Structure formats: structure tokens, C-alpha cells
């Protein structure tokens, strides 16, 4: 029979440390190697992953049916007009965004983001290829860079939020990413339209975000300010 020297509680026979405070149990009177049974078995019952995978397969099959019908109808009745490409590409886009993650055995968030980025770019490319005149290269100068910027930003945010942060730090991260995204969008669009790298329009967003960022950083660093604000704006 052992007691925790910190907590004063009696511990189960053979316990190596107190389960309340982790203090090691040293009892010279207790015979070593005595067979002690823990209160619970070691086996952790993790249920089989839900039937998401099966649901994903069923959704995939259901999605396939209208696509096949559309493709056959297209080639049978209007072979000169390739309208079924929009149905197929939209379905493929939906599948990659919403069904593909459930088919993966091990969830790899960066792989999902990469696949989504490629799927989105491919989807936009189809519209670009079939609808835009060859002289306009908006896909390469606007759509693709924005697609890359957005998904890189999502990947960075996933990496950042995989660890726990305070609310203020999380707000700073989100605000920074929104500001950076706005500036980059503005730069890409201006470069395409006017061939200049300009960020005039996003100045307003940038300045507002910058002020908010300074405020959040100040609140995060200065405990007195935080306490004063909590008192002043207590609701």
C-alpha cells in the first residue's frame, strides 16, 4: 500500500507514479515485481473509421452515371459541340474537393491541398481553353498565379494552426494572411491589366489590417493593456 507524498492519496498496488501529480512512488517496503493489475486494460478501442469511404465510393458511382449519360448524348446528338466537357469537369472538380479526402486512408492535409490546387487550376483551364480567344492569356497571368497563392496560403495556415495558439496570435495570423492575399491579388491583376506592379486599391485594406495587426500585437505583448481593455470593454 503506497501513498503519494504530494497528494496524500492512497495509490493502487504496484503503481510507479501518482496519477494525479506524476510524483514517482518509492516504497522500499513494497515487494518489487509483484503482479499488479492496472485499473483499465492497455488496449484502446479505436472504432473502425466510419463508412465514409463507402459513402465516397457510392457518391463517385452516382456522380459517374449522369456524366456518362451526358458524354454519350453529346457524342450521339451534337458531336460538333463539346458541351459535356463542362458537366464532366464540374463533376471532377466536385469529386476532388469533397469526395477525394474521404477516400484517403491516412489524411494528408498537404496532399489534399495540392490536389485541390491542381483540380481548381485544371477546371479553370478548361473554361479558358474552350471559351477565351487565343490572344488573351488570362489563365497564365491571373488565374494560375491566384490559384497558387491561395493554396500556398492555405497550406501555411494549416501548418500554423496544427499547433495551438492564443486567440490573439490566431487573429494576427489570419489578418496577416488576408492582407498578404489582398496585396498579391492586386499585384497580379494590375500586372495583367496594366503591366505594372501596383497595390493602390488594396492600400485601404492593407492600412486597416496593419493598424489592426499593430493593435493585436500590442494587446498580445502588453498584459497591462490587455487587462485595461478587458476592464473597459467588459460586457
Amino acid at each position: 500500500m503506497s501513498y503519494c507524498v504530494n497528494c496524500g492519496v492512497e495509490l493502487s498496488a504496484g503503481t510507479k507514479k501518482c496519477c494525479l501529480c506524476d510524483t514517482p512512488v518509492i516504497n522500499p517496503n513494497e515487494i518489487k515485481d509483484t503482479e499488479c493489475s492496472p485499473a483499465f486494460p492497455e488496449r484502446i478501442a479505436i472504432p473502425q473509421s466510419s463508412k465514409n469511404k463507402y459513402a465516397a465510393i457510392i457518391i463517385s458511382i452516382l456522380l459517374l452515371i449522369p456524366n456518362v449519360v451526358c458524354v454519350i448524348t453529346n457524342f450521339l446528338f451534337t458531336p460538333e459541340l463539346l458541351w459535356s466537357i463542362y458537366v464532366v469537369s464540374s463533376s471532377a472538380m466536385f469529386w476532388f474537393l469533397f469526395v477525394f479526402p474521404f477516400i484517403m486512408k491516412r489524411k494528408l492535409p498537404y496532399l489534399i491541398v495540392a490536389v485541390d490546387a491542381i483540380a481548381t487550376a485544371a477546371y479553370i483551364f478548361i473554361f479558358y481553353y474552350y471559351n477565351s480567344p487565343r490572344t488573351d492569356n488570362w489563365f497564365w497571368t491571373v488565374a494560375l498565379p491566384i490559384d497558387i497563392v491561395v493554396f500556398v496560403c492555405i497550406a501555411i495556415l494549416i501548418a500554423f494552426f496544427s499547433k495551438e495558439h492564443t486567440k490573439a496570435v490566431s487573429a494576427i495570423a489570419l489578418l496577416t494572411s488576408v492582407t498578404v492575399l489582398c496585396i498579391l491579388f492586386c499585384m497580379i491583376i494590375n500586372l495583367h491589366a496594366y503591366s505594372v506592379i501596383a497595390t493602390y486599391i488594396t492600400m485601404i485594406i492593407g492600412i486597416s489590417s496593419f493598424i489592426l495587426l499593430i493593435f493585436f500585437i500590442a494587446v498580445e505583448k502588453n498584459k497591462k493593456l490587455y487587462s485595461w481593455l478587458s476592464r473597459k470593454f467588459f460586457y
Partner: protein
Amino acid sequence: MKKLKKNVKNKTWFKLDNAGTVFPGQNTQTWSNVIRASINLKEEVDPELLAIATKRCLPRFPTMAVRLRNGFFWHYIEKNPEPPIILPDANNPCLRIKFNEDNRYMFRMFYYKNRISLEIFHALTDGFGACVFLNTITAEYLRLKGYDIPVGGMVLDINEEPKPEEIEDSFVKYASKTGKERLPLFKTYHKIGTRMPKHTTNITTGYLRVNEVKAKAKEYGVTITEYLAGILMYLHIQFQKAEGKKQKDVCMQIPVNSRNQFPSKTLRNFSVNYNLRIDPNWGDYTFEEVLRHLSLSLRLTNNPKHLSVMFAANLSMEKNPFMRFLPLIIKDLAVGLVFAFGAEKTTTSVFTNLGVAKVPDEMMEHIESMVLMPTRGQLNGARVGAASIGNVMAVTFSNMYKETDVEREFFRFLVREGIHVKIESNMQ
């Protein structure tokens, strides 16, 4: 009466009781509202005999031997012809219930060394009903082992027919026809920490001596429930104070067995939750002040009139014609959303005390202790369940966080009060 009895035996489906209607909607892939009750015997459990005992007892409990079905407007339960499932215990109790697993039963029986455990979905019954079910199975198990165990207390006679009053929805029967109450909703303090991995819970059980706790509670002029819930409330006030943030209300949820106030014999849900709050912004509270506040609040609210008004408030959804004819899928979605964004925000922690389980003396000779464990919370850090049998009281913390600050301070408090505490945990 004879006709009614016949009806119970031949009934193949039942409506869920008023409290039970909300639990299926709260169910998620990782969390279910499950009650776990365990009995520690003095000898190792034989799983084969336990399976036979469970099977024999099921006809006596028609509302437990069921599977959940979806109607167009409401869930209902129907007789389950499959055999029940007996499993070896695992390190992570109160695992989520899936309605198409375990032969579609909404309860699971576990065995581990000398312990028999029952995990049951809250939609079927409350802590009292779960303990009656478990004690009846354990008594039958002991009979199969060759012991002579009579019926009485929480042990029902399995040769008897199920009684209509045991399957009634007592909420409907005893709800006030005229009284109305709107439950106030406040955001409350939650002690946070590092979340346990998915599907796991940090369990700590402290075994106390009933006579010691009773004597100490008597010193303060309160009941055992008030005393232990008071400690929990006091500790949360201290934790919040130490965090130095904006002081929110500390609210203890205390489920109360309404069978103590009404002559109900139902084995289905018949408990309601009292939310007892204290505002730390009013000043520094001593333990005695917290205890007095909690004790007086509980005594003021815990009376049949107030309970029946609370039943009526809970029944309002079921009686509202608009809600009644809303398709089940929308109802479930609404319940899930309300629960996800509201329910636990209004309570800091839960303290549920079954009280002393009454079983025949012949059965007591084979029992060491009885444990009642609430399911882990989704915002409530440490939730507490207590049950006593003989002179042993088991106080169990189900914690969603790895940190054991609440448990540690709670049991240290009891030790300082001169109460002997023996600890065991699934994290050892």
C-alpha cells in the same frame, strides 16, 4: 390492468421518452451521451456466464432490449431479436455509440478482471435505470455462479413480467399543466487544457468511505451531493481566479433523480438537471460560503412543483405542433446545432450522484464497489459521477483534457478534510 400487462409484453416498439428524443440528434462520429456503470466484484468475471445472465435479463427490460429506428417525424425504438454483445473492457470507456454496431443494441456489456461494466445510451435510460439494469444482470450472474441472491432494492425479479409503470414516460405524466419557465442561458467559465486524442477519455476514480464523507458533510450541515459539488464549484472559482481573465459565472450542473419527488417507478429517463450558478465578480468566496450558496440554491429549487414546471418546459418542443410535424432529419440537425453551439456553454462542470445503491445483503457480500461514470464533455473539462454501495463511494472524473488539475485539487481537498481517498486511473 391485465390487458396493460399483456400490452407491455407484446409491444414491439416504443416512443422515446421526452428526454430521450434529443440524444440521437446530439450523437456524432466521435461522441455520444453514454452512461457507464460498473460493479467491482470480489472474484474474476466469467464472460460466458455474463453473456447468459444478460440474455436472461433482457425480457424483463423491454425498453433496453431495443434498437433505434428512424420514423418520419421522430425516432422510435423497436424490439431487437439479436443476442446482446459482451466485450472485453478497453482503456477508453464511454466510446461513441453507433446505431448499426453491436447487433444494433444501444448498450454494451464489458468485463475486465473482477469488473462488470454497462455502457448505455442516455436515450434509453438515466443513471438510476442503468444501475437497476446492471444490478439485475449482476445478481443473475452471481446466481449462475451458484450463489443464492434474492430480489430486492435495485435487483428486479427477472421471472416477473415487465410492468407498465416501468416503461412509462413520467415526464409527460408529472409535467405541470399551467406553470411555465424559461431557462436562463449564461455563458460560463470552462477550464481548458490539452485535449485527449479522439475517442479517449482521461478517467480518474477516487474511492472514499461513505461514513467519513457523510460525517464531514454533516459538519457543514449539507448533504453529500451538496458537499462534493460544493468542492468542485469552489475549485473552479479558484482556477478561474488564478487565470486572471474576465470572471465568468461558475455553473454546476446537478442532475436530480425525480423519482425521489414523484411516485414514479419508470426505468426510462426521469432526471432533470439543475444549473446552480455563482458569480465570482461579487467578491471572494470562502469554501463555506460557496457550500452555503449551492446548498440553499439546490434546496430552494428542488421541489416537486419546480420539477413539474421543468418537465413542462422540456415537453414544449414535443407538444409544439410546428415542431411535431417537422421531418426528423431537420429536427436532428437543429438539435445537433443547438447542442454544438449552446448546451455545454451554460455549464462549467457536471456533478451527478446516484446515491447509495440498495442491493440485497447476500449480493453485497460479493461486491467491492460500484462506479458511475458520465461521458466526457465537449466543453466541460472534468465531469464527475458518484455512486455508493455499502460503505464505499466511488467518485469518477471523466476528463476530455490530459491535465488532471481539477481531479488533483479535488482529492487533495478531501485528504485535507481528513477523508481517506484511494485513487485509480486509466492513465497509469
